[in-house]
């Protein structure tokens, strides 16, 4: 027979129908689902060999040990290191997302190094005075600044005041905290939470912060009356008056005094660790100890002294270099500005323009965690001296300028090797031991060669002095409590800081804590009691202006009956003080 076209069609048709009763075409349909998985614009995570690397977080002075899970060289997640004796495997939300920092959209992209250098040397040519503001003193980099400034004719080294002591939480049994955010990114979180089980926490604070919420006792004291309570504890104020001023029943106050004196060792803390309340530790044998620093090379000792910004004469600075590369205690600009001479050159080293960059003539992009190699000074709660590096996890994403190199270059000093020199000095001193995380071993320094010590530090090791408690010589500072402040009428509200100092918003994912859950109070929001809100004609969620000694801030107001009248709850530490709120 001859095959006609008709036969062909019949064959094809039959084939098609027959195919329908085999799984093949149906499977095909099923597989098209995969197509709708690969939605356009969905990034594919890079695959590759999984490595583990160790470093220390330098977002704050806690310097928690970190285990980075990397694909090749790229860190994809961070976790704490359980074997670290201080941080004990704990990380805060900022630390957990720190590896996103290099990709932050608001990061600086230009590097006007030449112009800045030229302008600075021009300003110094006439024998001008140069100052460096170091937001995190105590680092090796800080030593390099001080050495450079000592070499310069009129160099001044500025840094926020550091308490001369460390806090030994582990041995405290009763802790009285005047609004110190003890359980919220204070000191080294891991260390605090480990110690928490051993002490009774009494939080004296006008608003219920995270710490107050979990404290064994919350003394909801009247705003601004901390000093009154302190004064009573110092025996300078009768109980009745203390009760009257603080709004706490006499019974509870008395019980507090009893607890501090009988259930020792006691510890008294406040938010910024400077106020006279700290002096109470002398009276109650507070577990404060002398702060200890890791050894430094002898040759470094001729360094510029640490001076307080307040001590600098007004309009005396021709050049101010601000090292903002590591987040630290923020000195408000109004305190700095008067010190600058006319047309002073201000150079800020930062990762974003949103800090001092707003005021500086030049803002240079500094390398930041986890791109920069730096060391981290001991936290307030680390009793023993410690030395650990935050070794870079990723190459810098974009142009970076090294502030230390910038400053030391002016003084013709080479500090490129400072960390190594410091490490050698520590090794020479031969005290303490090196803790390595990969093998979770602790090796005495004297059993190590300098090379291996340095290598160990770079692989995410931590040097710790063997625990020695040097009791604090309570000489400095008066133990007299300061006079109780009288509220002034123009600033009717007490500004109370309810959030721990936020690190840099290092990752877009931190929106989970703010925009996506309202778990934490954003810096742009204040919280008022219904009374004050009503008085100022502010609605919940409405816009408002917060007036403080530090200027006026446009904010969003939230109303919460949990906030006491007379208090405005904010999230920015530097705003603490008195102020008033008006509707925008």
């Amino acid at each position, binding site marked *: 027979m001859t095959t006609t076209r008709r036969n062909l069609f019949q064959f094809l048709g039959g084939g098609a129908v027959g195919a329908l009763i085999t*799984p093949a075409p*149906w*499977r095909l349909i*099923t597989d098209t689902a995969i197509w709708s998985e690969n939605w356009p614009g969905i990034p594919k995570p890079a695959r590759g060999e999984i490595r583990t690397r160790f470093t220390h977080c330098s977002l704050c002075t806690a310097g928690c040990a970190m285990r980075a899970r990397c694909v090749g060289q790229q860190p994809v997640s961070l976790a704490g290191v359980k074997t670290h004796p201080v941080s004990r495997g704990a990380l805060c939300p900022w630390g957990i997302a720190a590896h996103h920092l290099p990709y932050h959209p608001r990061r600086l992209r230009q590097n006007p190094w030449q112009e800045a250098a030229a302008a600075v040397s021009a300003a110094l040519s006439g024998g001008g005075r140069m100052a460096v503001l170091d937001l995190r003193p105590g680092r090796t980099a800080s030593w390099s600044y001080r050495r450079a400034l000592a070499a310069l004719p009129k160099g001044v080294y500025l840094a926020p005041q550091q308490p001369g002591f460390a806090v030994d939480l582990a041995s405290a049994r009763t802790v009285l905290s005047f609004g110190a955010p003890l359980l919220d990114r204070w000191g080294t979180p891991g260390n605090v939470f480990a110690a928490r089980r051993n002490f009774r926490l009494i939080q004296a604070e006008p608003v219920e912060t995270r710490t107050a919420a979990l404290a064994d006792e919350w003394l909801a004291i009247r705003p601004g009356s901390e000093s009154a309570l302190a004064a009573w504890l110092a025996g300078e104020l009768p109980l009745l008056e203390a009760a009257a001023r603080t709004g706490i029943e006499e019974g509870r106050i008395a019980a507090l005094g009893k607890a501090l004196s009988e259930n020792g060792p006691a510890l008294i803390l406040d938010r910024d660790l400077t106020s006279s309340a700290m002096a109470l530790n002398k009276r109650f044998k507070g577990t404060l100890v002398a702060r200890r620093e890791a050894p430094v090379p002898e040759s470094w000792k001729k360094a510029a002294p640490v001076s307080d910004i307040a001590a600098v004469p007004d309009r005396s600075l021709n050049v101010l270099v601000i090292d903002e590369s590591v987040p630290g205690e923020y000195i408000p600009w109004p305190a700095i500005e008067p010190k600058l001479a006319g047309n002073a050159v201000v150079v800020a080293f930062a990762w974003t323009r949103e800090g001092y960059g707003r005021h500086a003539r030049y803002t240079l992009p500094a390398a930041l965690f986890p791109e920069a190699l730096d060391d981290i000074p001991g936290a307030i709660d680390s009793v023993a001296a410690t030395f650990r590096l935050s070794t870079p996890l990723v190459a810098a994403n974009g142009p970076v300028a090294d502030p230390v190199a910038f400053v030391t270059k002016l003084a013709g000093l080479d500090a490129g090797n400072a960390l190594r020199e410091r490490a050698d000095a520590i090794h020479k001193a031969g005290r303490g031991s090196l803790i390595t995380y990969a093998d979770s071993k602790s090796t005495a320094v004297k059993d190590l060669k300098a090379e291996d010590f340095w290598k160990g530090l770079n692989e995410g090791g931590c040097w710790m002095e063997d625990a020695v408690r040097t009791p604090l010589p309570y000489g400095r500072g008066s133990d007299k409590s300061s006079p109780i402040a009288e509220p002034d009428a123009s600033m009717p509200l007490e500004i109370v800081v309810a959030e721990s100092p936020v690190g840099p918003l290092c990752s877009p994912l931190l929106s989970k804590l703010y925009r996506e859950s309202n778990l934490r109070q954003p810096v742009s929001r204040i919280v008022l009691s219904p009374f004050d809100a009503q008085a100022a004609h502010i609605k919940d969620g409405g816009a408002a202006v917060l007036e403080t000694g530090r200027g006026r801030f446009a904010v969003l107001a939230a109303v919460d009956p949990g906030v006491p009248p007379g208090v405005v709850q904010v999230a920015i530490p530097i705003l603490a003080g008195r102020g008033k709120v008006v509707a925008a």
Partner: protein
Amino acid sequence: MLPWNYGFEWNAAHIIFLGAFYTVLVVVATTVVSALIRARRDLGAKETEAIRWHSDFEELPVSDRVCRHVLTGEFRERTCPNAFDCRHCETHGKWIEHHPMAQHPEFEEDVLGMAFPLDRFYHRGHTWARPEEDGTVTVGIDELGERLLGVPDAVELPAPGARIQTNGTAFRVHKRDADVRILSPVDGEVIETGGPGRGWYLRVKPDATGEPAFRHLLRGAEVKAWLNREMERLQLALVSEGAAPTLADGGVPVDDIAASYPEADWDAVCGEMFLE
């Protein structure tokens, strides 16, 4: 959904649910397909005209579907069950056995001033059929029809040789906005076509001759009764289509009714009168 798909199990839930689903699909599909097949078959069997007439007949108002014997007053009340095809109507068959319709010459051929000669049979769609000596049948539009259409604007006649069937379309007439399908009074084959001027439209070679072949058509005494009825219907139609009720006085309809009711929806009027 199919045994080799994710999550399919041979359990009651799946079997009942999917069983019901597939049954529904099958039933619906079968219905549509069988309708298609039957339609195709009808098309082949040249059923179109018959079916059109039947569905038209169903659409007619009950008042228009009355039996011819009601018109004459012989029955009090009866709706035609056979779509005006009395050839298959037992009632009609029995009735005329007992009451044979005599052809009396004394019946006048003039009804309301319209000529309705008795030498022919009338279809209720206003056509007439006249058997000729040579066995053919002449088909034309009756006087009332003529007057309704007046002088047609156009006429579509079937070609000689075409088949026409009772109650099917014989030919079409266009008048003003009216496009009227004129129903055929007989079955047969067209052998010659006339036209408006010539008093007749078709000459047909009928399939059957003799009385039974014309049993479904009106004749003799019925005509007048029927026509009176038709005049009422015409009047209603005219009124409902927006013409002034001037026929009310029983006056004689003018030659060209269409012309005298320019405002009336003539399409509707003709549709009504020609049973479309």
